[in-house]
């Protein structure tokens, strides 16, 4: 018989983004157990955000991480490993516990929805195998009272990033199928993917095309439509804006989330990766305010 879960014992698990401002904005970071979608124009900063999260998830619990590994499925060609390495060097230099070995990158090209579904299913099998190990290790450790037994346990995958989902589904469908049937089939595939993703414990992130908000001064529209929107639990919109002094300001906005109000946070991208900006520091002119308020 199915058993209810005791809510008073639920501890919401989140992974830090490595920045106090962004973590505060997200009430702790990227949540486990739900699908968070990062949507935005090309070059808005989505990939930068997820690259940073591939590293911050490896941080220990005491620093807001999940002590975990990450899986990165990149669908737009060659994964930006050099950039990942550069953030690692500049931001986490000298830390042995944060390294590229803890980031598993899907090597095979993912171009069709079937490829993506297959990859995620195989990942599911891998996670199931791994899930058994830490429990066994911890039990053995308790028995033998080894003080640093925790470090002996293998890391488990705690973050899955798909960058991006839209790329794979955008071109799906044979040209001789009627339009409506194509839409139905695509919707079915999207839901199938989500069901798989939601069955996997651990955070998930996906980049996709724009949401109905403003970026670079233009209104932008969603790709993948309503069916996909129904699949994600939390949608965050990443945008870039021209600042008053000629520079660029980026914003991260909550479009919808069960635990967050409609709000936004500015951030910048530099060699060290992503850094959130407090409101005062984001004084870049009224043009930005008009878009976001």
């Amino acid at each position: 018989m199915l058993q209810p879960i005791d809510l008073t014992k639920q501890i919401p698990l989140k992974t830090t983004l490595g920045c106090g401002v962004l973590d505060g904005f997200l009430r702790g970071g990227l949540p486990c157990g739900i699908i968070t979608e990062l949507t935005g124009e090309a070059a808005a900063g989505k990939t930068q955000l997820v690259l940073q999260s591939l590293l911050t998830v490896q941080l220990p619990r005491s620093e807001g991480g999940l002590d975990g590994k990450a899986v990165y499925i990149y669908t737009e060609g060659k994964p930006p490993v050099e950039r990942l390495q550069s953030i690692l060097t500049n931001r986490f230099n000298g830390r042995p516990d944060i390294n590229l070995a803890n980031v598993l990158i899907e090597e095979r090209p993912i171009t069709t929805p079937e490829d993506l579904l297959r990859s995620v299913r195989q990942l599911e099998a891998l996670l199931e195998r791994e899930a058994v190990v830490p429990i066994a290790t911890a039990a053995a450790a308790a028995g033998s009272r080894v003080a640093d037994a925790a470090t002996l346990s293998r890391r488990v995958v705690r973050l899955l990033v798909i960058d991006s989902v839209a790329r794979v589904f955008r071109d799906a469908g044979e040209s001789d199928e009627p339009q409506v049937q194509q839409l139905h089939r695509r919707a079915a595939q999207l839901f199938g993917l989500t069901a798989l993703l939601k069955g996997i414990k651990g955070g998930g992130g996906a980049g996709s095309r724009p949401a109905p908000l403003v970026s670079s001064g233009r209104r932008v529209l969603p790709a993948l439509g309503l069916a996909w929107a129904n699949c994600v639990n939390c949608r965050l919109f990443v945008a870039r804006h021209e600042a008053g002094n000629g520079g660029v300001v980026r914003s991260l906005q909550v479009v919808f989330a069960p635990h967050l109000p409609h709000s936004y946070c500015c951030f910048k991208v530099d060699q060290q990766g992503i850094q959130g900006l407090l409101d005062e520091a984001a004084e870049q002119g009224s043009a930005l305010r008009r878009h976001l308020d």
Partner: protein
Amino acid sequence: MLRQEVVTMPLPPHLRNKLLSAGFTNASELERCGGPVALARETGMTPEEAHEVLQLLGERLPAGSDWRAGAVSAATLLEAHLAAPRIVTMCRDLDELLGGGVATGQVTEFCGVPGIGKTQLGMQLAINVQVPAALAGAQGQAVYVDTEGSFMVERCADIAEGAVRHITAMAEKQAASGRPALAEGFRSGAVVFNVASLLRGIFYFRIHDYTEQLALINMLPRFLQQYPQIRLVVFDSITFHFRQDFTDMSQRTRVATLMAQQLIATAQTYGVAVVLMNQVTTKVMEDGSSKLVPALGESWGHAASTRVMLHWGVHDNERHAALFKSPHLPPGNVAFTVTADGVRGMPRGSRGGAGLANR
């Protein structure tokens, strides 16, 4: 049925006459007589005959045996309907739209686009069902069936905190107007209404596919018998797993119809409010235009007796609830908000023309 009269019971005539001669006129009197031996003594039946009569009280009558035995009067039904507890949403306009709140004993559906507030409303109802009877609350518990993973406990705790503040304030108001019982109950600890108790009052299930969903619906009657304080069952959402596990649409319709029948029966039998959150989908019309309709198709439309569409306002940026199906209420459209404390009504002075008349 305790009101069943002896004259309508399908008994052999000689037994019926013995009951009537002994002064028994209805089933509740038979229940009170204290067992087959006592009944036999009072009526002059043999113990076996008395046992057979009492057995009949617990049995369902076969179809067609005597329709009066299975019927109740409309007056009785109306009494029951008016007395049945309702679950408030804490948005007064929305409660009025629903006739006082979400009704128990029925299936109510809320559908809407992602982000409109379905999960927020589901969580709010799961908290509000626990409001004490002294404040006209249902004073019950809730089952929350999470099929999408949108239920986040920290948000539910926020909503619980907001409810505690709201209810405490109402208890103080009652005390100030001469009814201090509830406020004293809170102070003395006799009545518990805090975040921990509210979270414990929600039986939370996480469902990962449609077979789990169907298994849970099958198990629900037993669960409700085990925990009779439950007055609300929320499915958030009822649709999600049905949109991708089926390739055969007619099979999906059959399964959905069966699910609907079970939910209606469960709501009626146990007097609980079954609340279904539904997604919306785009329907392409014949002329090529498209509109948003509740998911799962037209045959699903019969599942809920009351259906509400949550949507963003056409003329404003507010959240709206539009009642489009109800057994006895007129259609209507009201605005509501979602604050840090949960679902609430619009702030005073900003209720636009889209509300109910005279508000």
